[in-house]
């Protein structure tokens, strides 16, 4: 449904995104995850046809977003991060305007406006001036204008930013239900959100894609560099030194917790060192109080990936 190849965008000398490549299947909900200024908005703007890439191509529903921009735009619903709306219009007249410029006419248009008012739970607010709506309701109007023409692809830039927690939950449910019969790309810097809503995640940092996978696979893949956490009583220096001697141990960190110390061991991918480590510690006569593997959360993966990028650079 969406094919992005080697997308690169410069703003003057500033490199916003570099060689971004990914595909999105029909009916998939894809999460775009990254810290601020990572290039999420730039990528989405290019896909939505707001600006062209410096190089590379992007196709939406088979149409090139630059060469066949008009055809591509007909099939896209887009909500920018700032949710720019005409604040002096009522909700209904605003949606009517958007339905018209997106090609809906007559009876079908009115029917569809009523539908989206219903879907976005704006029914009670149809004649309210947008300028008087709270941020949460404006967000709903933003989503309503994006879906009014029943686009095949929905692009939502930070759809839950700046709204209260109850509305965040509702918005996520709404996005999930919208994703049932169309392709959705959403960006976020909130990890649990992406984990909850999206079927696949792209992690982007400093303009480059650092990981693409299903949320559960991402954790599994990075379980490669699995961590073992344990609580041990004994001399810190000796424990660290002998742990580091073990084959497959990449790094050892510790923090003291009263009488005992908590050690975190980074192991090389695929190795399971639990038994060996337990053996070692017990053998040396230290007190092994607790030992467990630590599965990395999406948050850890995210931090790890983005930190790694930074230390390389």
């Amino acid at each position, binding site marked *: 449904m969406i094919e992005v190849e080697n997308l690169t965008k410069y703003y003057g000398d500033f490199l916003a995104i570099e060689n971004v490549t990914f595909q999105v299947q029909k009916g998939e909900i894809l999460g775009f995850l990254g810290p601020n200024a990572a290039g999420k908005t730039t990528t989405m703007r290019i896909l939505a046809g707001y600006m062209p890439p410096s190089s590379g191509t992007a196709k939406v529903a088979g149409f090139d977003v630059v060469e066949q921009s008009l055809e591509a735009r*007909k099939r896209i619903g887009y909500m920018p991060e700032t949710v720019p709306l005409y604040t*002096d219009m009522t909700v209904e007249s605003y949606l009517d305007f958007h339905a018209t410029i997106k*090609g809906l006419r007559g009876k079908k248009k009115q029917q569809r406006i009523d539908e989206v008012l219903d879907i976005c739970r704006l029914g009670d607010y149809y004649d309210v001036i947008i300028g008087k709506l709270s941020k949460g309701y404006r967000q709903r109007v933003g989503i309503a204008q994006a879906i009014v023409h029943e686009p095949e692809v929905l692009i939502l830039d930070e759809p839950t930013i700046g709204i209260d927690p109850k509305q965040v939950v509702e918005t996520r449910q709404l996005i999930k239900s919208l994703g049932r019969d169309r392709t959705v790309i959403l960006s976020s810097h909130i990890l649990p959100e992406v984990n909850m809503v999206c079927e696949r995640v792209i992690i982007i940092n400093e303009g480059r894609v650092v990981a693409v996978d299903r949320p559960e696979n991402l954790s599994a893949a990075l379980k490669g560099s699995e961590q073992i956490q344990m609580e041990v009583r004994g001399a810190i220096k000796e424990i660290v030194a002998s742990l580091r001697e073990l084959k497959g141990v990449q790094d050892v960190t510790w923090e003291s917790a009263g009488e005992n110390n908590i050690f975190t061991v980074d192991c090389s991918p695929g190795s399971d060192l639990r038994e060996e480590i337990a053996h070692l510690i017990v053998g040396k006569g230290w007190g092994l109080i607790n030992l467990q593997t630590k599965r990395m959360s999406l948050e850890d993966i995210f931090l790890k990936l983005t930190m790694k990028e930074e230390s390389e650079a």
Partner: protein
Amino acid sequence: MRNTLAIAWKELRTYFVTPMAYVVISVFLLINGYFFAASVSGSFAEASIRGFLFPASFILLILTPLLTMRLLAEEQKMGTIELLLTAPLRDTEVIMGKFLSSLAIVGAMLALTLWYPVLLFWFGNPDPFPIITGYLGILLVGSAFISVGLFTSSLTSNQIAAAISSFGILLLLWLINAAPQFIKGIPPGIFDYISPSVHFRDFAYGVLDIKALVYYLSFSAIFLFSAIKSLEARRWR
């Protein structure tokens, strides 16, 4: 065409939910009423609308920049241009829709002065032809002014900057026929030809010159085309 009308309709609505349309129309009518009353009640009173047409063209020069400054500058300032440019619209449709909305306001202002000629016919015996060409001329002048304002509004997100620059361009062009008094070496006909005020004179005296008609239409077309290109260029920044 439907898209163009949808944009025109939306803009018209905005003119009337904000005080803009009411203020501009009222000021226009107030000042024109003053000039018209003066022209028909003095000792050189004549049964024509010329006494209203010349001041009206100059008042339009001041008011249309205020009417057009919002059209694209505000979209850029509020970020709404992002949704406008990502909607399946052609840039031409966006510009023409906005142009038509302002033209409708200018048309409405002029329509509200139509009772001046009615009064003339009631109390006198005016020549109808200069009245018809006069109204056609001033509508063409209005359309030329709007196209300049729309162009400057496309260049900036600051409404005031858009208004001042379009006012500057219009005033300079309006008065440029006086340039031969101090610029030598360039045939004075050229200045006459590019100045919109010179071409307007014929209309006011009842002369329907095809050259003047072409002049105003191409004047508008050049600036509308520039506005379209300026909008298009936004996509490439």
